[in-house]
């Protein structure tokens, strides 16, 4: 009887000790929450996978050529527009405008470039399936670079011949308009070179990452995040449900969702991913195209959803890294501030008769805390792991 009682007491002490150890973490995080925090840390970002569709993706010569092409305004109709015109290196590779301004005005908000090598689909509607195919879109868009592939092939032959030939082989001495295949090949190689450069663009650690890396390793976190920022992070992984879409170290699930954001005034018929999914299957430069270097390895296209009602009016979930540095927000700059975005997600109106969101019922203080947390996600944009302020030449 006595020994039984002893055992019971011993067991009770053991249980309470174990519980105390399991729950006693800094800032009140539970072990389960710590695992979720760890999954958001940049330390968990997977090494960059190969892009077999682009055989020069990891060729430093192609990256060097691509960097120069990225900044070359001769690749435009009016000689004034380069990729870097909208994707400004000192502004996290975007432009701060509601709608991108090329030779004309585009219909969409310029997207940042960092870590897009990890995205299976590009553009707000995912109508491209590689960085190199994406890079070719704006070059031929009438409102972006506004030129033609023939014009760009001539620029390569005249201005970049030696560098190009060293990577891709000999060019004809003269390029004439009837050499359509040659012209398109050069055009594709422009895209592949730009992609080789863009692959090197990645985000670096933010204050949030330093905090998470400390807290999950039970190291001191004093002064790393303030109480509002920690409260905002708790909401982010908790009742604000942000991680349903903004998950993983890049804070995106790389999918497409309809969050009931109103279209810009005057815009009709933009069906987002529903159109984008159909477009990428037909794209002249997709993974299965003759221009791809791995036509038989197109898993993303092979298993892509194209028929789901949920794709209608759905747009790409953007990474939230550096989100505080790139207002205005959403696919066409519909919201001016982070506060406007959070207010939308809190109220969850169905602007076009449809939204996946449910109202969150967060208080003003909580919205302020969420915003404070989002501001901790700002960090450097690195090229080859180094700070970058523009073309190195």
């Amino acid at each position: 009887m006595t020994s039984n009682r002893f055992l019971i007491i011993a067991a009770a002490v053991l249980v309470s000790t174990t519980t105390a150890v399991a729950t006693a973490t800094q800032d009140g995080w539970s072990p389960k929450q710590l695992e979720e925090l760890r999954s958001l840390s940049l330390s968990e970002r997977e090494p960059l996978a190969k892009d077999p569709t682009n055989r020069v993706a990891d060729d430093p010569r192609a990256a060097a050529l691509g960097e120069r092409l990225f900044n070359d305004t001769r690749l435009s109709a009016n000689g004034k527009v380069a990729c870097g015109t909208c994707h400004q290196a000192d502004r996290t590779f975007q432009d701060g405008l509601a709608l991108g301004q090329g030779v004309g005005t585009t219909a969409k908000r310029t997207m940042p470039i960092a870590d897009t090598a990890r995205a299976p689909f590009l553009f707000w509607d995912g109508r491209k399936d590689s960085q190199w195919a994406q890079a070719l879109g704006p070059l031929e868009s009438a409102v972006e670079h506004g030129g033609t592939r023939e014009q760009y092939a001539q620029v390569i032959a005249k201005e970049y011949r030696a560098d190009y030939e060293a990577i891709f082989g000999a060019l004809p001495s003269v390029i004439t308009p009837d050499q359509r295949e040659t012209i398109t090949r050069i055009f594709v190689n422009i895209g592949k070179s730009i992609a080789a450069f863009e692959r090197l663009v990645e985000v670096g650690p933010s204050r949030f990452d330093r905090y998470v890396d400390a807290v999950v390793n039970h190291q001191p976190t004093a002064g790393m995040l303030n109480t509002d920022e920690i409260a905002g992070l708790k909401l982010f992984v908790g009742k604000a449900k942000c991680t349903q879409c903004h998950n993983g170290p890049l804070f995106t699930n790389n999918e497409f969702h309809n969050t009931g954001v109103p279209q810009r005034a005057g815009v009709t018929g933009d069906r987002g991913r529903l159109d984008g999914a159909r477009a990428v299957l037909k794209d002249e430069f997709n993974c299965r195209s003759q221009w791809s270097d791995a036509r038989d390895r197109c898993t993303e296209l092979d298993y892509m959803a194209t028929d789901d009602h949920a794709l209608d009016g759905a747009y790409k979930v953007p990474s939230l890294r550096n989100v505080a540095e790139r207002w205005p927000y959403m696919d066409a700059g519909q919201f001016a501030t982070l506060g406007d975005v959070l207010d939308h997600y809190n109220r969850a109106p169905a602007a076009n008769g449809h939204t996946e969101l449910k109202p969150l019922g967060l208080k003003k203080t909580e919205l302020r805390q969420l915003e404070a947390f989002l501001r901790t996600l700002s960090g450097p944009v690195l090229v080859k792991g180094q700070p970058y302020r523009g073309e190195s030449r």
Partner: protein
Amino acid sequence: MRKTQRNQNSIGPRARTLALAIVATLTVTACTPMMAMMRNVHRPAITEFGLGPRTSANGVYVATLQTERALKPRQMQTVRVSIADAAGQPIEDATITIDGGMPEHGHGLPTRPRMTRAIETGTYEVEGVRFNMGGWWEFKVTITSARGTDTVTFNLAL
């Protein structure tokens, strides 16, 4: 009187047709995720989670999943499904289709996984599997063979 009667009769079906059309339109255009969110879903007990073996809804099959590595969110993955009958005999002539989603969030799988080949007796490869977040996922394997069609539902915790 007879005329009124006829009118009433003719209005009746028309109203029914209209009502059906409205219901059909609502069903087609309503937001699937919202509808599912309104459903009361209960997460199964921990013992109901895992790669199996698990018995199909009507007891026709027992299926087990095999993965090369632990399933991870956001990555394209390949899954193998081993199928046997209730007595443990491998099923050689099966075709399988995949469905699933997150019952708590009311969305389906982000990709369209398919069976691509039979690996060995009773084991089939399914490619194109992706889960777009951590949490509770249902992974439903519908099996058709000479023994009939039945569905095995796996609960996965990612």
